[in-house]
């Protein structure tokens, strides 16, 4: 890069006094623990998942190569398509939380005193056990005596079984997902907002622009790289949703559970409950492809809306 030019000037001094650059051996020694761990616990498991996705792996006994059978089964598997649909729907709902986060981040940025308190309060769900969050919301969503139905009754709206009724389950999860992720998005967007020069706001308010105009004409375009980043992160996380589902559908009537599984839940069930690891591996590979396609798609779309100043 550009700083190469400044380097050679110093060298002769070092050589004269006998100071040696660190040798490659040091590098290898430093890198060894991380590399051994990476290979044993990441590279090899990844390759083994890939391999198993082409095998029939019984719980006991040797695996046999079956070619694309796991994948063809997957394509014909209604459970898988249902899970795929659920994950996609959940992800779309989570995306609705991003405009909300942008508005809230901009509002918090305008606050002088008290900003720290807002940040802490919005961040609380991030540091609360997801399992605990699932339990609390499950209680709030309870169809018989949950808080949500009670509040809705004030407005004359009929209560529903938000978790147990498969028509609502994913939407109910989506609301919790947005609520849980808001704190993280606010911090990342807040860091992006800090980087926007204040002079732009001052200049535009001299020109008579109000806050709303400034938000759409200065904040959103200049924040768009951060918004893009938050979107990428949110989509990846949403496609991997597991904890909420696991805790909120425990012991709920079976139709809700069979109808509301996500891809990762299906993977867990196949690979670690039924111990059909070949099929589970195929689901994991498909998850990887879904995430890659979703991410690539967003990089494509960003050209039309992300503004690099």
């Amino acid at each position, binding site marked *: 890069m550009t700083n190469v030019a400044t380097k050679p000037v110093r060298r002769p001094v070092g050589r004269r006094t006998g100071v040696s650059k660190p040798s490659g051996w040091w590098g*290898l020694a430093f890198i060894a*623990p991380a590399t051994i761990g990476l290979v044993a616990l990441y590279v090899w*498991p*990844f390759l083994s998942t890939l391999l198993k996705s082409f095998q029939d792996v019984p719980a006991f006994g040797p695996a046999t190569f079956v070619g694309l059978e796991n994948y063809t089964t997957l394509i014909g598997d209604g459970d898988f398509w249902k899970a795929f649909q659920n994950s996609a729907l959940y992800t779309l709902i989570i995306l609705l939380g991003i405009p909300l986060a942008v508005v809230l981040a901009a509002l918090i940025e305008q*606050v002088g005193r008290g900003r*720290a308190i807002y940040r802490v*309060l919005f961040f609380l769900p991030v540091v609360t056990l997801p399992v605990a969050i699932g339990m609390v919301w499950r209680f709030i969503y309870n169809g018989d005596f949950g808080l949500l139905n009670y509040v809705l009754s004030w407005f004359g709206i009929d209560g529903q079984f938000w978790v147990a009724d498969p028509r609502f389950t994913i939407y109910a999860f989506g609301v919790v997902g947005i609520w849980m992720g808001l704190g993280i998005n606010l911090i*990342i967007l807040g860091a992006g907002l800090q980087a926007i020069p204040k002079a732009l*706001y001052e200049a535009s308010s001299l020109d008579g622009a109000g806050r709303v105009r400034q938000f759409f004409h200065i904040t959103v375009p200049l924040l768009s790289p951060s918004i893009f980043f938050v979107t990428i992160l949110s989509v990846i996380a949403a496609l991997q949703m597991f904890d909420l589902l696991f805790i909120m559908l425990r012991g709920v009537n079976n139709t809700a559970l069979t109808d509301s599984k996500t891809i990762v839940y299906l993977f867990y069930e196949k690979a670690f409950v039924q111990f059909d690891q070949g099929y589970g591996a195929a689901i994991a590979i498909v998850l990887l492809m879904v995430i890659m396609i979703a991410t690539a798609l967003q990089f494509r779309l960003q050209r039309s809306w992300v503004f690099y100043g």
Partner: protein
Amino acid sequence: MAESTVRRTSGPRRGGRAGATWPIHVLLVVAVVFMVVPFVWQLLTVFKTTAEVTRVPPTILPADFSLHSFETFFSTVPFWSMFAVSAGSLVLRVAGQIVVAALAGYAFARIPFPGSRVLFGLFIVMLMVPSQLFLIGQFQLIRDLQLLDTLPALAIPGLFSAFGTFLMRQAFLTMPGDYEEAARLDGANTFQVFWYVMLPMARPMLAALAVLTGLYSWNDLLWPLIVSPSGENRPLPVGLAGLQGQFGTDYPTLMAGALVCSIPLVIVFLVLQRQFFAGIASSGLKG
């Protein structure tokens, strides 16, 4: 922080923009209410009786603040042993990952060695693969090492992190080389330079990484679920999930359990806010 030193005295002059902040506070307070209501409802429920909780319409305030739910929770759930498992695996994972990632990050940033770029590329690739892709192989390894249902099983995969390595490399890349050269002139070897000179300068990033790793470790459900099949050495999330199965409708006890298991990390967060925010923001620096 800086903004607190800037007094609002110039407020009236700046008119348009700095004008009234109360509408902003109103909007934010409405949002905060949505954020906080679930926690408030949880807190109120903890002190109620099961009869109060299942009444329609629900009672808002408990008639008398009963502590029965905590008694039930602590008498049926081995909280302290689960807490010890959660805390122990967190410490192991955080300490291990910091050392491993700092060493590797330093080498990638500062020591030229053959194959450095290819290897770093491999780390980056692994960074982008979702964690579920590793679970089957990691489980197999843990099982083959006869480590199922042990504390190390919970921590081992988390000792190694492509993300941590990447983060530490970024930290060391931005440091000036002068200190290194000065130390080397004084006769320090590479490890001494790393340990006594560079690592202390990376302290803010180390803290951010530690806090993020701790957060993941404490909250993780899927991995502990997989490697603790028999139920021994279960961390809090797994135990709490079991509670939900066991006390399906005893909401005060469930809420008390959820509260007690969440409190430790919330306290840590309140103390180390700055590190949490820095960790999240730094993970957002570059994808």
